[in-house]
């Protein structure tokens, strides 16, 4: 139990159990993403050909905004009853806590994506012309990029005065290359016009660089001073 992996597992199981009982994050994320899908669908009303070209952008913007809802709760939840302070004084390595939170958010956002993708397919008449299995790789790498940075910046923004507002302000500028890669990879797979290889490699590099950096700096951020 007291190994770093054991601590990660314990925190992850605790978060999943909390979420399973309350369903706060997943419900608000799902409803939010649904609203985004409906509003986009109203305002663009695309043909099948057009929608293939714009769907990559729409899907990821919807997921990004919805993910921010869950990411904001990651640490805000721990403020009640001073749980975050307890983490700070405990001798447990900060990174196993961070990894548990990242894995938890990864699971939440993946569930969201699995549930919302059929809706996108229905509303926008989507059918991939390129190799569809690559979409899974793009989704996994892209979601990891979002949640690893998002969990890190949520830990930063929870210490600021305007908590909920701060997270997107920090997260969006830094994730621009990852977002561009996700959107372009998805569009090129859907339209089948280009190969998505370059973007997948870029996403993988982005994931490696930022996972390393976040693990290096998380302890400093958790302790603050």
């Amino acid at each position: 139990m007291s190994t770093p992996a054991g601590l990660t597992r314990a925190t992850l199981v605790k978060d999943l159990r909390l979420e399973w009982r309350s369903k706060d994050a997943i419900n608000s994320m799902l409803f939010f993403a649904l609203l985004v899908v409906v509003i986009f669908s109203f305002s663009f009303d695309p043909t099948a050909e057009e929608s293939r070209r714009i769907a990559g952008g729409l899907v990821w913007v919807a997921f990004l905004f919805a993910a921010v809802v869950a990411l904001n709760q990651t640490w805000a939840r721990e403020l009640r009853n001073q749980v975050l302070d307890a983490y700070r004084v405990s001798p447990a390595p900060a990174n196993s806590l961070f990894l548990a939170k990242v894995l938890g958010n990864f699971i939440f956002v993946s569930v969201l994506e699995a549930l919302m993708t059929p809706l996108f397919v229905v509303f926008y008449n989507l059918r991939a012309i390129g190799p569809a299995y690559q979409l899974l790789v793009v989704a996994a790498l892209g979601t990891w990029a979002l949640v690893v940075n998002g969990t890190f910046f949520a830990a930063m923004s929870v210490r600021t005065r305007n908590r909920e507002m701060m997270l997107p302000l920090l997260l969006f500028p830094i994730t621009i290359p990852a977002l561009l890669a996700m959107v372009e990879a998805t569009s090129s797979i859907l339209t089948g016009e280009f190969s998505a290889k370059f973007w997948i490699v870029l996403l993988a590099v982005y994931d490696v660089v930022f996972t390393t950096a976040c693990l290096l700096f998380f302890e400093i951020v958790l302790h603050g001073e």
Partner: protein
Amino acid sequence: MKRAFPILAILTAGLLSYGLYGALVQAPTEQTMGDVQRIFYYHVPSAWTAFCLFFVNLVASIVYLWQRNPKADALALASAEVGVVFCTVVLVTGPIWARPVWGIWWTWDLRLTLTLVLWLIYVSYLMLRRFSSSGQTPVMAAVLAVLGALDVPLVYFSIWFFRTQHPQPVIGGGGSIDPRMLHVLLINWLAFMCFAVLVCWSRYHLEILRRQVDETQALESLLAAGRPR
């Protein structure tokens, strides 16, 4: 040190006036673009100065993370603020030039997008500094500065693959430039760098003074609370 400030101020004023004269009068008119091209003497030096300042910010942030020296943090703050101002000048003068020459205000080209993303990252840096509680600001800001720097090559490659339309760099890019133009450009860059150092210097001192005032006030209120009434 105290005497160096007015000397630098006078030097900067002289260089800026000479640079303005050079840009408007001395430099020859460009053949195809005409007088619009003269904005180049402000656009390019501002860009170089902004990038230098962002680099100073990165170095100061790393030094802060290393040694926890509050002076490094004050320097990081000053260089980020002044850098954002110069970067804004770049982003405003660019479209003014692009409209008559390219026929469009903006395009998602490599250098434009990279500058815009840098500007966004540093604005979010300043936002973080503005909103986080005072004791933690320096550490959080320094970490964000390092992450932002890691982002730059990734942004570069992603947009490089996306597209490129900007005129190839005239300096060191194989293009040719009239030596008189180069002269004016370099004078202007020197003037802008001096100006940036001048502003950073005052901002740095202001920040140090502000912190001293804060500390003194905190100390006074502590003493006042301890005194019997």
